[in-house]
């Protein structure tokens, strides 16, 4: 390290799922030499699932997360289906799982936008920190906040109806599901769907308006990246099952309808010593150039069409914003996320009106296999679960690539970009601090898939000179107050 270098740490990053920190290494002219998002938690699920029976896996691994447990549950269930030799579910079980995952994605997206990110977008990145939180949104925009809460609640009601609980229920069994939806349960949910669709449309409109009316947001942490996502055989947006598609920034196709069971041929992971999160990359492009983005921005760019009409109209407006090219604006993640929320709402209505959802044919059986790979589009992006079992049916090896991992390099690049654009001198301001977090927040990272202490995380930022002396220090208390030491 040069004598003139100094390091700034934001630890922990707030209003994201889990714990992480940002560090910046800067020279005397305040140029950013290095910007890193560190994931400082170690979970170890891949290790301690070893030796457990495969049937336990979907219920066990969903504990990775309290926000997207259903996605882990279903990705593991898809892998376990293969372990019991099942490649196709009954129509009832398939539709139940799809409905469950639409409920999951709806509630997760609503939580992220309304609870975590809307304060930045509504009040400004550098606005008064005392207001820039969900309580501020409730005070200033009570109607909007209430709709956000209700959107999330509706998604959770779907999850509870299918899996028995709003969080960490039990639904998938090897080769199917353990119950279907009764007509009464469907009617209760259908009674609320018109509002949900309406509010999702309003959320899309709000994001369109915010993004278009803030030109400075367009370049904020923007990158020119590849996109990876699951796609239906017809090229439609798909979040439960399909083939993998990767596009380069110019719209060229790296691969399409790729069978995800061969994921190890196309994706590798690099380990770097300063983070517990790996760095995946496309094998064909190598470590330097092969990184990519996943999640709503990738999916809405990647698909040719959305199967539901209102979301498809919104997608067309989204793509028109980039003149038909890819929308690479990092903050457009929020916009894409709300388009997907609308897609979820419309899809939920279709499935609730589908008689198959109340069927009794729930489980398929097959010949046992020793390896299973399940992939799903979780709210935050493509999620891989891979298991090998021994002859007794106990897990021998597990490999998970969680969605946020795929965005690891991109989040680091966005942090670097924002740091370069906004860092303005020796004095650290809370506003600057939040700009860096806004860049990370756009990706809706689930840094550990575990810890949620919204608004209560203390935060300390130190500016340390080349000799190690503290030049400046800001501390955020649990009540949101900022103090300079």
């Amino acid at each position: 390290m040069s004598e003139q270098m100094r390091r700034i740490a934001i630890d922990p990053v707030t209003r994201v799922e889990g714990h992480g920190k940002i560090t910046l290494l800067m020279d005397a002219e305040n140029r950013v030499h290095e910007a890193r998002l560190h994931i400082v938690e170690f979970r170890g699920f891949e290790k301690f699932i070893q030796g457990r029976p495969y049937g336990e896996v979907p219920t066990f691994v969903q504990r990775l997360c309290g926000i997207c447990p259903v996605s882990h549950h279903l990705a593991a269930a898809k892998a376990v289906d293969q372990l019991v030799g099942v490649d196709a579910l009954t129509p009832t079980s398939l539709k139940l799982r799809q409905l469950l995952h639409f409920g999951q994605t709806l509630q997760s997206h609503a939580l992220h936008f309304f609870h975590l990110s809307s304060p930045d977008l509504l009040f400004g990145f550098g606005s008064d920190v005392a207001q820039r939180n969900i309580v501020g949104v409730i005070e200033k925009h009570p109607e909007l906040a209430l709709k956000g809460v209700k959107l999330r609640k509706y998604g959770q009601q779907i999850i509870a109806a299918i899996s028995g609980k709003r969080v960490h229920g039990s639904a998938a069994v090897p080769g199917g599901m353990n119950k279907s939806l009764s007509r009464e349960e469907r009617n209760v949910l259908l009674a609320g769907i018109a509002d949900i669709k309406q509010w999702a449309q309003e959320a899309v409109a709000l994001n369109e308006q915010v993004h278009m009316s803030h030109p400075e947001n367009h370049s904020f942490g923007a990158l020119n990246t590849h996109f990876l996502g699951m796609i239906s055989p017809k090229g439609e947006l798909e979040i439960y099952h399909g083939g993998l598609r990767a596009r380069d920034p110019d719209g060229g196709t790296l691969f399409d309808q790729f069978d995800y069971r061969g994921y190890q041929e196309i994706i590798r992971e690099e380990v770097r010593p300063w983070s517990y999160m790996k760095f995946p990359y496309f094998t064909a492009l190598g470590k330097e150039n092969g990184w990519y983005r996943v999640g709503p921005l990738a999916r809405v760019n990647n698909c040719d069409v959305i199967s539901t009409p209102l979301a498809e109209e919104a997608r067309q407006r989204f793509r028109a914003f980039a003149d038909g090219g890819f929308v690479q604006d990092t903050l457009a993640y929020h916009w894409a996320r709300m388009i997907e929320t609308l897609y979820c709402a419309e899809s939920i209505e279709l499935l609730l009106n589908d008689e198959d959802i109340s069927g009794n044919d729930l489980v398929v059986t097959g010949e046992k296999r020793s390896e299973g790979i399940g992939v799903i589009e979780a709210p935050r992006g493509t999620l891989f679960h891979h298991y090998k079992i021994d002859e007794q049916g106990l897990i021998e090896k597990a490999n998970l690539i969680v969605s946020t991992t795929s965005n690891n390099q991109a989040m680091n690049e966005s942090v670097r970009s924002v740091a370069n654009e906004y860092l303005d001198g020796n004095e650290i301001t809370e506003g600057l601090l939040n700009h860096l977090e806004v860049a990370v927040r756009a990706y809706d990272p689930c840094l550990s898939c575990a810890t949620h202490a919204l608004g209560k995380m203390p935060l300390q930022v130190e500016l340390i000179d080349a000799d190690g002396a503290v030049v400046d220090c800001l501390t955020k208390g649990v009540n949101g107050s900022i103090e300079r030491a």
Partner: protein
Amino acid sequence: MSEPTNKTITIDGREIPFEEGQTIMDAALAADIYIPHLCHRPGLSPHGSCKLCTVEVNGRSASACTLPASSGQEISNNTDALNEVRKTITQMLFVEGNHFCPSCEKTGNCTLQAVAYHLDMLDGHFPQFYPRREVDASHPGIMLDRDRCILCELCVRASREVDGKDVFAITGRGTDARLIVNSESGKLVDTNITTDDLAAHICPVGAILIKEEGYEVPIGRRTFDLHMVGEPGLEPVILRKGQHSDEH
């Protein structure tokens, strides 16, 4: 069954009849009085090992499942002091094994979990042991997860007294005590146990499980989702399958 007599005992001030040869537990169950227990099941010989059924008989502590009922016994059962001791015993059972209810397939059907709820147990209190005992999944239909065994010996007695097979035993003492399998290899696959045996179904926790059916019963329809552990008439239900007759 012997002829009814006019002999009585008193439990928590309520006078109930008993028959010659009955234990306090037998008489209490017949009168729909719940005395918390884990190692006792009607039809199997009493064991007296879990100590949850400890009651005070004329002022002295005794196991209700092993002490014969006798005329004039004044018994305290549902008292704060006894329930506090029972809760401590239950906490010790939890920390001695790996009882992770959130991912355990027995959750909702687990008597240990139900007793813990019954006793208002809110934490483990003691440091976790985190044992690492051998999992035996060698049998095609039955799995043995020793980290969840509470050494109640229900499987030992069921196999010996009902199935006539003698598949299980407890070996070792103190913290080294563990469940072993009576075959040369020590594996379940080399015994003659089958999924029809009572021993394969009687485990009150998730130590002995029938494979492949763990999560088939949805949350909300499991035994203790629908019933309290102290509910009269639940014993034969738990014995049968861990699933109540009114479940669908």
